[in-house]
């Protein structure tokens, strides 16, 4: 089994890692990052978890089967292409909503961003499907 040191370190690194991955996702549209790298880092966090506590524990922490997450991610990415149609535009046309955070400051939420979220979840699911499957190999 892995050492106390590693387990403890993992326990404390896990949340910041997840957070960092979301940070990369959110900032991806303006700065380097994006759903892909974000998803990979989130996956890396769970991979680390599985190294430290075993695949079973990591699966429990994830709550859902990674393959479902993957499918959901794909579904999000696909669905993000549809809103444009309701506005008479083409499939995958970007539709943007300005969400006021506080007076004067708005957050641009757009279908391309939702698409990126789909990428995030797909990549997360993919990486974990792989890591768990290889990890469970005898």
């Amino acid at each position, binding site marked *: 089994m892995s050492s106390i040191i590693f387990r403890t370190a993992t326990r404390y690194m896990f949340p910041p890692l997840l957070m960092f991955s979301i940070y990369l996702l959110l900032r991806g549209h303006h700065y*380097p990052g994006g759903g*892909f790298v974000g998803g990979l880092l989130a996956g890396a966090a769970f991979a680390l978890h599985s190294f430290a506590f075993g695949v079973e524990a990591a699966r429990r922490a994830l709550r859902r089967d990674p393959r479902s997450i993957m499918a959901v991610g794909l579904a999000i990415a696909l669905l993000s292409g549809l809103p444009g149609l309701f506005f008479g535009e083409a499939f995958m046309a970007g539709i943007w909503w300005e969400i006021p955070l506080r007076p004067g400051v708005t957050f641009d939420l757009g279908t391309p961003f939702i698409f990126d979220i789909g990428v995030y979840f797909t990549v997360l699911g*993919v990486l974990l499907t792989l890591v768990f499957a*290889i990890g469970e*190999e005898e």
Partner: protein
Amino acid sequence: MEILLAIVVGTLYASGIYLMMRRNLVQLIIGLGLLSHGANLLIFIAGGLRSNRAPILAEGEKGFSTVMADPLPQALILTSIVISFALTAFALVLFLKTYRIVGTDDVDEMKETDT
């Protein structure tokens, strides 16, 4: 500069092909990896190394004032990197499984289906 990089691309392709012709499954995978590196670098060079400035618009600005690196080859390479990662991962598992079932990782011994 580009000439040097062209040689790098050539070397990557050459090493990749050489590894693919070895007998070991792992070398096959590594060879494929080098090949995809080579292809990516080729796109990068052929797409033109026109600037070292990242194509990212600074906060507060509305448009680019200087020449930026070409963003399109970058996007293409990103896609290609991800795809080849996916394929490498799958190939790895495939080879693992093959080794288990066939009982060897010697590619030269895998000719049952051809004759």
